[in-house]
């Protein structure tokens, strides 16, 4: 396991299985602090910069909450409007400037590779809060934590990834991460939005057990985890076709009657129509829990890269 202090968190692929396990265990210890039932001042005197070159409410607020709960402070911007970026400043220059104002940087950017570039221009740890259609490693860690916490283990779980598997970046990162843990994966997508062959090939090389289907009905009885993602309207030239496809990947009460009692339904949120709101009241619904898990997971990461606790 590489040393954590000062480490950049840029892509889930940079994290080994022991690395991921270390984050999950540290996150669990953070839960009482994240919920406000236990106090911590472990990051007192430390400053987190949140550089959000595009808005992302959930990611930004969960990072800020994580830092504040640990006694640290945050600064930054929630969107580039009104900053020097609009005057044409390069990302490299922005990062060099911010380096002297803070101890750790979280970056959200509309362009792929932005976090890796930023990390090259600062000695301070950079955490990728999502770059374009690229990586979003902290989201993946939150997903992993949720499965691990709900199921007690990742090993051996039957996980179905549902929705737009072609363009959905969260499912790509999640698939790579869980492939290291000996899970059985089934990809459920509309025709034309299947998991890219290149990724399927790499997952098989990693030794993952992989199946694919176009029908949600095929996996509902056997799955331990249903990871549902949004199917975007823009992917379909014909709105009627979209309605038809979206309808057939909708998780509702009737469908869940067939499911295992302890099936967990996850969703990175925001959802549109993929999960019927009636599902929220069932024990299957774990997506709000998943969103809440964003705070302890990010607390754990902040402590680790700042070399505190552990």
């Amino acid at each position, binding site marked *: 396991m590489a040393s954590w202090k000062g480490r950049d968190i840029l892509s889930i692929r940079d994290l080994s299985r022991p690395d991921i396990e270390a984050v999950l265990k540290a996150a669990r210890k953070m839960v009482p602090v994240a919920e406000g039932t236990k106090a911590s001042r472990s990051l007192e005197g430390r400053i987190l910069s949140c550089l959000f070159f595009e808005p992302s409410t959930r990611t930004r607020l969960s990072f800020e909450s994580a830092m504040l709960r640990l006694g640290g402070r945050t600064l930054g911007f929630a969107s580039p409007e009104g900053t020097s970026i609009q005057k044409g400043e*390069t*990302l490299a220059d922005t990062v060099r400037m911010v380096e002297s104002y803070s101890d750790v940087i979280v970056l959200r*950017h509309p362009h792929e*590779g932005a976090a890796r*570039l930023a990390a090259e221009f600062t000695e301070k740890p950079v955490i990728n809060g999502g770059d*374009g*259609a*690229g990586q979003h490693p902290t989201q993946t860690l939150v997903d992993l934590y949720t499965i691990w916490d709900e199921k007690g283990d990742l090993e051996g779980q039957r996980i179905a990834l549902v929705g737009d598997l072609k363009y959905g970046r969260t499912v790509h990162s999640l698939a790579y991460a869980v492939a290291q843990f000996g899970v059985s994966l089934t990809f459920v997508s509309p025709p034309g939005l299947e998991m890219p062959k290149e990724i399927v090939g790499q997952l098989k090389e990693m030794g993952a057990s992989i199946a694919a289907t176009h029908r949600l009905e095929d996996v509902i009885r056997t799955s331990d985890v249903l990871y549902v993602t949004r199917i975007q309207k823009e992917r379909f030239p014909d709105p009627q076709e979209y309605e038809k496809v979206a309808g057939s990947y909708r998780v509702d009460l009737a469908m869940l009657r067939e499911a295992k009692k302890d099936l967990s339904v996850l969703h990175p949120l925001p959802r549109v129509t993929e999960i019927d709101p009636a599902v929220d009241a069932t024990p299957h619904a774990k997506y709000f829990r998943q969103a809440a898990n964003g705070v302890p997971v990010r607390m754990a990461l902040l402590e680790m890269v700042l070399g505190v606790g552990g």
Partner: protein
Amino acid sequence: MRELRVTPIKNGTVIDHIPAGMALKVLKILDIGGSVSSTVTVAMHVPSKAMGWKDIVKVEDRELSPREVDKIALIAPRATVNVIRNYNVAEKHVVRMPDRAVGILRCANPNCITNLREPVETEFTVQAGEPPRLRCRYCDRDLEDIPAAIV
């Protein structure tokens, strides 16, 4: 009398075993346009024992930089570079596929951070093969059309 298609050169470089059809890309890599002052000879679709068909480029009074050789390796992995001095082959080497391609390709992903005005060189990891597989170190995408991406 038999006519010589390609005459020997006194000083310069002969790039042999270029895949058929790639000679013009090699000229582009070497930035050979209308303004060169020496003789450039291009042979396209020449029979080859090893390759079936091949292209050859001869450039007089010029030796290649390592960066140019790396670029050629990416589109012609089996090319040989012969350095000619005083009509003799002074050096002969097969191009070597670099492990990393730094600053010689543009990322084809328009949304890649390296296509913005940032002070960095592009960098691709190279997995040998024909064609080689190149992955952008920044955006993680594979480069499909290598000849088109050479800068």
